[in-house]
C-alpha cells in the first residue's frame, strides 16, 4: 500500500464512521421502529403508516404544510430573483460583496434568535405596534403575530438566502452582451427576463427551490413560534408523537412519510417542469 492510499484511508475512515454511526445507524433504527406497534410487541406491522391515512387530521395537516411550503417557495423565488439580479448585474461587485455579507448575518445568528427577533418586531407590544401607537396612527395593537402572515414572513426570512445564492451563482455566468443582444433585437425588459435571464438561471432556480421547499416543509421553529393556533405544521405532529404522546414508533413513521412524500413532490415538480435532476448540479 503506498502513502497516498494510506492517507486516503486515514481521512476516509473517520468520515465513513461519522456518517455510519451518527447518521445512517440512527436512521436504520428509526426506520425499523417505524414498523413496530406501540404496544411494544416484537412484530412488524404497517399500522403506524396506515394511521396517517386513517386519521384526516394527519394527512390534512400534511397537505396543508406541503401546499404552504410550495407557496413559500414560489414567494421566495419572486422575492429573491430581483435581489439576485440586482446584486450580480446591476451594482458593482464591491458593493454587492458587502451586501452579501449583510444577507449572511441572519445565518450566523441562528434561526431561533432571528425568529424571536421577529416576535420582538411584530408582537402585540412589539416595535411596530408601539411605534404606530406612539405616532398616533392606531389605538389598539394590530394583530401582526401568531397568524399565517407572521409565519410566512418567518419562513421566508430563514429560507430566502438559500434561493438567492444558487440564483446568483448561475446569474454570474450570464454574459451581459446576451441581455444587450436581446434588447437590440427588440425585446422588452420583460421579454429579456422571460426568455433570456430566467432560462439561463433555471438550474439555480430549481436548486434553490428544492432547498427552500425542504427547509420550509421540515421547519419547526417558525411555525411553532410565529404561527397561530390554526397554522398546524406537520413537524409539530411529529414532535407531538415523540414528546407528548411518547409514541416514538408513530413519530418515526411520520418522519419517514415526510421524507418520502416531500421527495416525491420534488421529483414530480421536476418532471412536470421538464428539468432533469442531473442538470441541477450545474
Amino acid at each position: 500500500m503506498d502513502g497516498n492510499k494510506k492517507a486516503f484511508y486515514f481521512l476516509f475512515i473517520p468520515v465513513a464512521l461519522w456518517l455510519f454511526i451518527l447518521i445512517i445507524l440512527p436512521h436504520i433504527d428509526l426506520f425499523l421502529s417505524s414498523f413496530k406497534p406501540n404496544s411494544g410487541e416484537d412484530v412488524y406491522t404497517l399500522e403506524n403508516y396506515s394511521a396517517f391515512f386513517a386519521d384526516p387530521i394527519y394527512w390534512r395537516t400534511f397537505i396543508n404544510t406541503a401546499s404552504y411550503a410550495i407557496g413559500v417557495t414560489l414567494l421566495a423565488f419572486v422575492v429573491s430573483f430581483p435581489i439576485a439580479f440586482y446584486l450580480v448585474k446591476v451594482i458593482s461587485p464591491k458593493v454587492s460583496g458587502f451586501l452579501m455579507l449583510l444577507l449572511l448575518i441572519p445565518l450566523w445568528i441562528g434561526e431561533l434568535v432571528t425568529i424571536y427577533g421577529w416576535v420582538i418586531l411584530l408582537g402585540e407590544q412589539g416595535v411596530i405596534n408601539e411605534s404606530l401607537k406612539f405616532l398616533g396612527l392606531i389605538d389598539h395593537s394590530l394583530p401582526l403575530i401568531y397568524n399565517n402572515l407572521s409565519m410566512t414572513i418567518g419562513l421566508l426570512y430563514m429560507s430566502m438566502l438559500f434561493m438567492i445564492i444558487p440564483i446568483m451563482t448561475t446569474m454570474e455566468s450570464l454574459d451581459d452582451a446576451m441581455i444587450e443582444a436581446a434588447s437590440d433585437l427588440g425585446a422588452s425588459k420583460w421579454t429579456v427576463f422571460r426568455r433570456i435571464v430566467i432560462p439561463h438561471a433555471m438550474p439555480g432556480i430549481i436548486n434553490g427551490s428544492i432547498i427552500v421547499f425542504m427547509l420550509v416543509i421540515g421547519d419547526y421553529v417558525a411555525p411553532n413560534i410565529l404561527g397561530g393556533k390554526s397554522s398546524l405544521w406537520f413537524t409539530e405532529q411529529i414532535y407531538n408523537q415523540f414528546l407528548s404522546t411518547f409514541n416514538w414508533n408513530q413519530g418515526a413513521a411520520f418522519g419517514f412519510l415526510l421524507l418520502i412524500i416531500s421527495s416525491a413532490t420534488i421529483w414530480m415538480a421536476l418532471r412536470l417542469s421538464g428539468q432533469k435532476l442531473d442538470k441541477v448540479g450545474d
Partner: protein
Amino acid sequence: MDHILELRGISKYFGDFVASKDVNMLVEEGEFISVLGPSGCGKTTLLRMIAGFMEESEGDILIKGKSMKGVSPEKRPVNIVFQSLALFPMMNVYENVVFGLKRKKIGKEEARELALDMLHRVGLDGFEKKKISELSGGQKQRVAIARSLVMKPSILLLDEPLSALDRKLREHMKVELKELQKEIGTTFIYITHDQSEALVMSDRVAVMNKGLIEQLDTPHNLYNHPKTAFVAGFVGDNNRFEVASREGEKVVTKRGWKVTKPDLDFDPTVMYIRPEAFIVNPEGEVADSEIFEAEINTVLFDGANTKILVKPEGRDEILIALPQNARFQALKEGDTVRVAVAYDNIKCYKE
C-alpha cells in the same frame, strides 16, 4: 437625400478619460465602413453609442436624418453583432434567428420564411434544430450575423466579429462577409483592429487613435496618402525614421541620413517610406528620386512577401520589399544593391 448615418461631433467622457473626441462621420446607404484602431482606442464605445447602449456626452447621432437622442436600443433601426457574439444558448439556431422577428408584429409564417431564407443565405441550411453548443466557430459567427441581418436593419454594426476565429477561417469569412454585404446591400459599420480586414472589405476606413478619427478615406488613399503619422504607421508595413532637422531641400534623420524631399513647407519630425516604395537595382535613369547604395544585411524569405534589410553605414536600417522577379532571386547577404525611392513616396509628418 439624407445620409443613412451621420455622426455630429460625438464625444464621450468617462470621468476625465476621453474615449471619443469630436467624431464626425457621414455614411452613405449601402457603404461598408470599417473603424480601424488599436485596442482601447474607443471603437467599441463608438459602436455602443450608435446602437444606443451608451449615451454620448456631446454631439448627435442621426440615422436617416432622424436624431437618436433618447431613443432606446430596441427602437433604433440598427442591429449589432457583438464581439462575444452573444448567441442565446438556451435556444436552437432557428429560435435564435427568429427571436427578433417574433418581437416585430409580423405573422408566424412570414417570420419563419424570413428566418429560413436568411439561414440559407449564410449557408446554414438544415442547421435549424442544432444547439448553439454544437456549432463550430464559423457557424456561430454566421448565426450571429443572420440573427441581426434578418431584422433588416438600416445599419448593421459589427464589433470585431472575426476576432475569435483562427487565421484560416478568418481569411475565408472575410471574403464571405464582403460578398454577403454586397448581395444584401445593408450598410455595414465594421470594427476591427486588423488592418488587413479593414482594407480588404471596406469601401471606406476610419482610422481611430485615442478616441479621435485621424483619417476617414478609401483603403487606397489610406495606404498611399496617409494624412497623419499615426495612419502611416498603423496601416500597412512602413519604415519609420525619426527626423532631426531640415536643411533646405534635404531632411536629416537622427541617424544622419540625408534624404531629398522637395517642396516641404514645414519642419517634419518623422518620415515614413513603405517597403515596396524602394526600387532595387533600377535599370536606366530614374527621375525625381533619392538614390543610394547599400549592403544587404539580411534576406527575410517569405515566399511572395520576401524582404531584405539594408543598413547603409551608420544610418537607419531599412526594410525593402522585393518584387517577385527572377532578377532578385539570387540576392544574398553581403551583396551591394542600388536603391531608388521616388520623392513622392517619401512621407513627412510633424507629430
